[in-house]
């Protein structure tokens, strides 16, 4: 399914690392298959999947992450983008660390708009918040990232 790589990307961003993201992907697909009848109302399929993923992330993964927080944060890091030199490796690690420091609601806003490329309206629909709320989370998250990443941004 063409959507799968995108789901993995979103999951990796939400759960701060690729392996945890894949677990999240798996739960998302399983739940989507079970509740597929609820989608027939005629909405965008991808948004629907993202919404399911987000709900599971909030319910399960986040509470697990709280349990072993120190471990998860220290180990955070995506093991992709292997063809970069030493310099880009350092920079990649910094993006992960900077993202991991954001409050969850800012990180998901950043992921949906600046990485997944959703419009504000669609992103707000997925999260289930007003567009104004999304925009202010986006701006706060962006400002924090720019500070954390320094001149790189």
């Amino acid at each position: 399914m063409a959507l799968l790589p995108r789901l993995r990307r979103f999951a990796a961003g939400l759960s701060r690392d690729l392996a945890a993201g894949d677990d999240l992907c798996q739960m998302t697909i399983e739940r989507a298959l079970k509740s597929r009848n609820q989608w027939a109302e005629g909405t965008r399929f991808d948004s629907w999947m993202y919404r399911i993923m987000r709900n599971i992330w909030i319910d399960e993964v986040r509470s697990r992450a709280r349990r072993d927080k120190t471990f998860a944060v220290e180990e955070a890091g995506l093991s992709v983008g292997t063809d970069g030199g030493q310099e880009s490796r350092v920079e990649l690690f910094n993006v992960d660390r900077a993202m991991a420091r954001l409050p969850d609601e800012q990180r998901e806003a950043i992921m949906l708009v600046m990485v997944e490329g959703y419009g504000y309206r669609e992103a707000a629909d997925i999260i289930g918040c007003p567009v104004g709320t999304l925009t202010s989370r986006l701006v706060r998250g962006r400002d924090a990232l720019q500070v954390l990443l320094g001149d790189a941004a």
Partner: protein
Amino acid sequence: MTIDPETLAAYADGELAPADAAKVEEAIAADPDLAKQVAAHRALRAQLSAHFDPILDAPVPGSLADLLKPRESAQVIDLAAVRRAREEEQPLEKAPRTRWAMGGALAASLALGLVFGRVAVPTEPIASHDGGLVARGELSDALTTQLASAQDGKQVRILVSFRAKDGRYCRGFEQGATAGIACREDGNWQILRTQSGVHAGTQGAYAQAASQASEIMAVAQDMATSGAFNSTDERKARDAGWTRN
């Protein structure tokens, strides 16, 4: 005029209406600092994309891909093969009714019965027409009139309605063990794709149906110009007779 950070971000993300964007552009022209902020916003966006996009090209772990694979008992029907089978079947019917010919016809119809599952009874839902396959009877009626939002207890289930890139109206459906996509063409519902699972116990059949429907939805997503219809759009398209405008 002062531009708040939210408006500036919305401008950088291309989210402003043209009139508002023009105002922001004026303000940017007058204030190099605003221009710098827009550039920084876009640079961050590019940096994040560069960081996360490699996941899109990375191989998907087998454990995830397997979840979406149709089970082995499912068969994606090659429509050309079905047509050939039907054409081969016809001479048999005209042949003298020998035991052998009967056997052949029986075997052929059994094969078709397997392919179409219990959909083949009582009225045949799919028939040949102008070298293609079109929906008939109950399936055709459901495709024409049924809305995805009101189909409790119906034999045919509409999974999704959408406008294809070629301008045709299309609908994903499920009937018994068969799922497929049909597009409106010259007053008929042309069957573009069907997929059928063999019932193998309740648990298996359930998983089967789920994976079939998700495949159909994935195909629909690829065919559609802009996602699935909501119930309003679907009703509008139905009331207009599914004709292109």
